[in-house]
């Protein structure tokens, strides 16, 4: 099966005006404009197979959205090759656009003063969906997203979570095989985030859609994505499974303890075994070098009254942060 998305040596460079501070800078920029090249995306190469859900991770300004826009055909790359659903996005025209959905968490296509169904009807006309197919798909989306009682309320009266669900429904009525989702859970509460994650997984399973999403919420990533692409300063740092990344770059393990017996154990006692991350009797968390985790556990069990002990990987956020600051080279030290 050919890949759903292919990007080869994809680069995007923006020319931006450089402006000094204050009035002087403004006048200088007007009279003698100076430009600087900003390399938003540099030689990024990856491949995504049909039916995969891939998360795109990176700090703000890393190049995630720029890459997404190139894949969706909104931006021409400076160099490199892209193929999405068998099309070159920026020259694919309407035929290509019928095969993708683009959802941007901070922008909305729903008409503010009208019920969401009105926007759905508009998209029905735009994507030329036959009436029978439209009814069937709408019914499915309404069930999966639990939209039953919001369809006829004006959008302005909906909660943020309900609005995002409707945005997703509007974007999926034409059954695109490829979904580009930029921060689909931005600003939502935990329940709404959870509902959207469940929906996306279910939708992929039913229709075999390929999903590329960016998110700041690690839960989105761990719950949905089988694979992550980590990008920083325009460069692709990592492409692979999330747990493999943790095993590769996490320098530490966490020992989570539940102390038994009296309260004779203090933070100082624990500090002899490793870095104390938190201590509130009877719970304590120690961080120790990865390769010493087993030995330290044994020493702890021998020396202190311990009711329970477990060895965990550090939180995924921390691993990712580490990847951004130190790269993803294997830690040999």
């Amino acid at each position: 099966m050919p890949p759903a998305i292919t990007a080869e040596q994809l680069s995007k460079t923006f020319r931006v005006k450089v402006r000094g501070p204050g009035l002087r800078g403004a006048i200088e920029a007007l009279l003698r404009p100076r430009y600087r090249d900003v390399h938003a995306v540099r030689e990024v190469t990856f491949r995504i197979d049909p039916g995969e859900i891939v998360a795109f991770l990176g700090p703000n300004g890393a190049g995630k959205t720029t890459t997404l826009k190139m894949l969706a055909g909104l931006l021409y790359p400076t160099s490199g090759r892209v193929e999405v659903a068998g099309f070159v996005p920026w020259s694919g025209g309407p035929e290509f656009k019928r095969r993708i959905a683009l959802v941007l968490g901070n922008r909305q296509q729903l008409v503010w003063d009208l019920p969401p169904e009105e926007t759905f009807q508009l998209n029905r006309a735009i994507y030329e969906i036959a009436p029978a197919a439209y009814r069937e798909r709408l019914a499915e989306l309404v069930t999966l997203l639990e939209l039953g009682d919001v369809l006829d309320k004006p959008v302005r009266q909906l909660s943020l979570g309900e609005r995002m669900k409707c945005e997703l429904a509007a974007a999926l009525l034409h059954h695109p095989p490829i979904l580009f989702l930029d921060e689909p859970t931005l600003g939502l509460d935990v329940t709404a985030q959870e509902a959207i994650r469940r929906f996306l997984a279910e939708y992929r399973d039913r229709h075999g859609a390929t999903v590329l999403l960016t998110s700041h919420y690690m839960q989105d990533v761990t719950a949905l994505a089988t694979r992550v692409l980590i990008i920083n300063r325009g460069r692709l740092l990592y492409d692979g499974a999330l747990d493999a990344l943790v095993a590769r770059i996490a320098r530490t393990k966490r020992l989570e303890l539940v102390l038994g017996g009296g309260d004779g154990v203090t933070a100082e006692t624990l500090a002899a075994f490793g870095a104390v991350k938190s201590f509130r009797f009877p719970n304590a968390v120690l961080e120790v070098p990865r390769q010493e985790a087993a030995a330290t556990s044994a020493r702890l069990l021998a020396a202190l009254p311990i009711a329970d002990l477990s060895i965990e990987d550090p939180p995924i956020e921390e691993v990712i942060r580490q990847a951004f600051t130190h790269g993803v080279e294997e830690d040999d030290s």
Partner: protein
Amino acid sequence: MERWEGEQIAEWGVRNAEFAMQGRVRTLRIPHSALRILAALWRLNLAEELQYRANFVASVLGTLFWIGTALLTLALFFRHTTRLGGWDYWEVVVLLGVFNALTGVIEAVLRPGIGRLAGEVRSGGLDLVLAKPVDAQGFVSFRRLDVWRLTDFVLGLGLAGYALSRLGRVPGLLQLAAFVVALAAAGIVVYAIWVALMSLAFWFVSVENLSVLFDAVYEGARYPVTAYPGALRFVFVYLLPIAWTTTIPASALTGRLGPEIALAAAAVAALAFVLARLFWRAALRRYTGASG
């Protein structure tokens, strides 16, 4: 003298028509699906607008007030003269009616549609349009129909009709047809000016309010183009073609220009449309970074 100038303009327009038609006609073809999308969009707006019936009253009052002040200003002018650029009072009122009718089209369709382009380029809202399988220019231009503002259109035509009766002229069928064509052409010219102006937003993202620029230029269309000194008249006929928006349709209606002027108007409209479309495409290429 004026007559001669009208014929000269007509000839120029026909010459341009030939250029405009060269292989560019296909850009004027409207696919069936576009009409369906338009119907869906306007149905949506209608549903939205009907919630606010007070807008209708406000719109009518606004229009009447505007027409009132415009007539008053005109009356002040005519206290000192009997002609304005060779036009007498009621002829200028016909022109005011046409101006007001076009204002209705601008306020109902153009300003709420393509007029919001600059803000959307800045906010990135345009991306959602570009991701859809639609012609972006058409979608952005005609996505809104603020139906109540069409009262301007109706009242404007009413004013033109009343002024015409005060002139004691009953236009023949050919003259009426010429007026309709010239008015449609005027609408297209106004549209083309909007597209060209708003496309500037792709280059100068920080331009705050491009529609103010349009208003400044369009102010010039409130008076017959013959009232302006030669250089300005040249600009309004050939460069910033606002003469074609009011002076020409009004002249066709009052019989000041013969019905053949409609051909020239149609040609100018076609040319303006094609140029605006080319400009839009160049602007969009820049936005997406296609022009390097």
